[in-house]
């Protein structure tokens, strides 16, 4: 399994192929549309991260010491970016997730979507992912 850094680098390379913003967004839309990530039955209040502009749903589970995420959003671009984040963080260890700085978002020119004041739900989604990582880590520590 590739590390977070390796996966980030992969995505950065993919985005380097795009000449203009429209190609980039078309790719995001593609990703947002093509990958259904979460069951409709899981789109419930408790999995909802409300942003003022768009809504994000997130679920997580632990398997063999790694954390896996599924996500969705009512806005396609938000969903596309959410999927990039999930691609990078899903399947990693809680510690790596907690420490990830995710600056690839910056490098591929989508920083503004992660502004805390954009309220598309993505900033809260990252917080929630790290929160899950901390929670699973604490649970594991207790069990040992």
């Amino acid at each position, binding site marked *: 399994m590739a590390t977070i850094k390796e996966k980030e680098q992969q995505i950065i390379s993919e985005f380097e192929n795009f000449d203009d*913003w*429209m190609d980039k967004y078309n790719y995001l839309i593609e990703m947002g549309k093509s990958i259904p990530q979460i069951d409709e039955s899981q789109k419930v209040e408790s999995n909802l991260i409300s942003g003022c*502009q*768009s809504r994000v749903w997130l679920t997580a589970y632990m398997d063999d010491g790694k954390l896996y995420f599924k996500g969705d959003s*009512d*806005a*396609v*671009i938000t969903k596309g970016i959410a999927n990039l984040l999930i691609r990078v963080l899903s399947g990693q260890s809680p510690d790596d997730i907690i420490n990830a700085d995710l600056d690839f978002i910056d490098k591929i020119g989508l920083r503004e979507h992660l502004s805390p004041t954009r309220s598309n739900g993505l900033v809260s989604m990252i917080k929630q992912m790290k929160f899950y990582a901390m929670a699973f880590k604490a649970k594991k520590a207790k069990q040992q």
Partner: protein
Amino acid sequence: MYQTTNTGYNLEKIRKDFPILQQEVNGSPLVYFDNAATTQKPLQVINAITDYYHRENSNVHRGVHRLSVMATESFENVRQKIAQHINARYSHEIVFTRGTTESINLVASTWGKKNVKKGDQIIISAIEHHSNIVPWQMLCEEVGARLRIIPVDDAGEMDLEAYRDLFNEKTRLVAVNHISNTLGTINPVKEIVEIAHDNDIPVLIDGAQGLPHGSVDVQDLHCEFYCFSGHKVYGPTGIGGLYGKEKFLEEMPPYQGGGEMIKSVTFEKTDYNDIPYKFEAGTPNVAGVIGFGAALDYINNLGLENIKKHEDELMHYATTELEKMDGITIIGKARNKASVISLLIGDIHPYDAGTIIDHFGVAVRTGNHCTQPIMDHYGIPGTVRASFGLYNTKTEIETLLKAINKVKEMFG
């Protein structure tokens, strides 16, 4: 250069007054269609602020030195100018606040707490801005009163028959907006006031969108309170006002405590100042007030009727063109509408649409526009909203149409 049938309205010259419009965004000229959120400022306003800081900045009232005298005079002149602009009877009926939101909160926490009791009712409409919902909700929660809601039909117009039926012996206040920031509906506020007065109930009007789109005459409207923001009418941020009928202001308890609002203070007893000062604790936003005055001068020089005519022209053009396009739903089709258009592009999420439109340099607003209940009424998460100001052009609308076509293409 710019098409307009509005002779005498020199759009090219007007646009030169707004430095921000000369700017490029994402490589395209900025098209600013977010005027309902806040308007851009002409040089006349910016320069008035600069001049104030260059020449007379000082704390107002009670100073004996020259700067203080000058600043106080400029400050009080604007109060008078606002009074004239909305045809208030006296300039002491104008209270300076941070903006519409604070004006409404002021009334809720002074007049409201004195007059609204357990079991009482306050009438608002289904098409209010959060600023004209939440203060009343908070008041209701505190004293045990409740809100009654004037329903709104699918066109975005209030149901006046239903409104009439809401009155009963528990009604204490009607609080409605003059013009909806989300749908553009120009509400029949004069009639609304008349009906309320037939029931002996005072009316507060949220005029945040009223002041920018035509002339306001509070004596003709007969409303008890009228609330407004400077930044929505080409003035600075951080300043606005509350008009209140003398008799109402006189009887209201004070708002915030501090300097300016008192006559004398001992630890045992404090005498409050006369209106409007009773409601203006602390150092006011003097530069903001000066800039607000310059903004009113600016629009009055252009002519309120001319501005309205221009904006209406833009709105009708945009509406006609949008209605020609496939898959566009315009939300809000009141017969009497100001230059605000809320729309949906197919079932494309407003956030997606707004993101792409921004890349064409066009600033529209997306979301619920702080009017969530009316979004819930339509069963939608939000809209894309284009709102036009005195400097916008038909060419800019064409850019928006192009961007919308691109959105349809990309998400289609």
